[in-house]
């Protein structure tokens, strides 16, 4: 056979089709590995808590407003961190990365496909969980606080979008225990900065997500560095989307150019 003569009838797959294929593959594998059962199990806890609050006369919108920040700052990041292990790291640990990279695909499509694969299911599950919390804690008063529910759903969706990107990035950077690495990042950077009074709060995506949910209460009586920044919802949405895009681009660029270890392939 003379070199340089292409005999295969195939054509190169488009980036979109590769992302879709990897997303479908990722979904199928996560379902068979019972990952979603774990997520559903975790997401059932807040609605049960809401029901208990209602039964003990501590429910209502007050309880709902307490629960939503827990979702966007702790629960969603944790659930996404659980899925980080299902990202590029999973391919490396399972020694299946070589099969994918031996195909005529853009390497960046791998984290992109993983992201798409985890995003849809996560948003649906988390949103369903929040709606259940709302129904549980509002009881017979359902109908009141629809605005709060809408804002909360927007914040939850944005949280999934953001922390999903962070999870994919950690899954690409840290091939061993990405769950732990991402959780440390969330606690030591995002949550910790959100707790410090003053302008550093703007770095915490959790604070912006709480703001999108309409629950951000800045302490502005203090002056100088210790005064919390005033944040508009539009600004928070813009910052979260911008940072999310940055995480995704970094994850894709890293996967595209990184030479994973010999034993990884």
């Amino acid at each position, binding site marked *: *056979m003379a*070199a340089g003569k292409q*005999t295969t009838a195939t054509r*190169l*797959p488009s980036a979109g089709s590769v992302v879709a*294929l990897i997303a479908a593959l990722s979904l199928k594998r996560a379902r068979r590995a019972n990952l979603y059962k774990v997520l559903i199990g975790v997401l059932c806890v807040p609605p049960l808590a809401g029901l208990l609050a209602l039964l003990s006369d501590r429910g209502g919108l007050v309880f709902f407003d307490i629960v939503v920040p827990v979702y966007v700052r702790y629960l969603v990041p944790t659930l996404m961190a659980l899925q980080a292990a299902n990202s590029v790291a999973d391919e490396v640990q399972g*020694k299946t990365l070589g099969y994918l990279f*031996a*195909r005529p695909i853009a390497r960046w499509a791998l984290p992109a496909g993983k992201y798409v694969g985890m995003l849809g299911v996560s948003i649906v599950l988390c949103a369903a969980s929040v709606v259940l919390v709302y129904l549980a804690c509002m009881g017979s008063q359902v109908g009141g606080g629809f605005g709060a529910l809408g804002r909360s759903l927007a914040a939850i969706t944005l949280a999934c979008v953001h922390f999903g990107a962070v999870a994919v990035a950690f899954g690409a950077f840290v091939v061993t225990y990405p769950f732990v690495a991402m959780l440390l990042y969330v606690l030591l950077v995002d949550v910790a900065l959100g707790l410090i009074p003053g302008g550093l709060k703007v770095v915490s995506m959790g604070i912006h997500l709480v703001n999108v949910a309409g629950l951000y209460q800045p302490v502005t009586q203090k002056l100088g560095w210790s005064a919390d920044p005033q944040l508009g919802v539009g600004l928070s949405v813009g910052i979260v989307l911008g940072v999310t895009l940055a995480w995704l681009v970094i994850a894709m660029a890293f996967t595209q150019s990184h*030479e994973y270890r010999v034993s990884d392939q």
Partner: protein
Amino acid sequence: MSAASTTPAVVCDHVSKWYGRIVGVNDINANINAGVTGLLGPNGAGKSTLLRLLRGALRPSKGKVTVLGEGIWGNRALLARIGHCPEHDGVYGDLSGLEFVTVMARLSGMDAASAEKRAGEALDRLGLADARHRPVGQYSKGMRQRVKLAQAIVHDPELLLFDEPLTGCDPVARAAVVKLIRDLGRAGKTVIVSSHILHEVESMTEEILLIYKGQVLAEGNVYRIREMIDEHPHQIRVDCDNPRALASEAVRDGSVHALSFPADDALLIETRDPDSCYPLLPRLALEHGVKIRALTSPDNNLQAVFDYLTRDRGPKGVAQ
């Protein structure tokens, strides 16, 4: 090697790959043509690194790898013309054999219908028709090896890189894999098969590339390689009823370099002058009443060639 070959399918031009201070391969120069080529060397010799360089998974630290006439690093389109079967046992255990191979076909650019059809054909060819709907995680090691080969051939590539393809195969699977490789070679494909077990490669091809400590020791036909090692003694094994009597006579001849007794009824002679030694042995046997059952040269076995070439390169340099 195909006579129709005009340009080598694979050209390594002073290719080196270092992992920090560790040398993966060092200054590899090799031309590989269509047909089956065995990449031989002990574990850690650099075979897998070389295969990864050939499929663009690693960027050479130095030199250039040309595959099917084009540079491979960063050449995504070229990957559609390459099939790869890794050495390790990693597979998508939760997918069925058919799903696994179909996904790989689709990632090579096939549409859904033809990908599934071709995946089925590839699995049939490897004898996995009955197991196609079972999860790969439930396959035996030999079956996993075959499904890995199926995904490598599903898109009908021109260059196939098989890293230790017979690992874990039972005799039936082994025969199927060897037949597949020989068939692919006869069909004009370029097939590079790595192994550290020489007789495995012998069953597939006489074209070999010997690699040791990241360097190519020799390449070409095993007989041509034998010519390259003329400075080493040639071995002649004599199976006879009285090897010690024959040895005592043979040692007096200047052509005999060394003697040993691999078995009670066998004599192994090392000579630097096989042309003189071959006629000498039957004559001595006749004169001293020694009955010779067989006169063979282990040097025609790749193992002997490999032993010769690696003998002086380290205490653990010999495969197996």
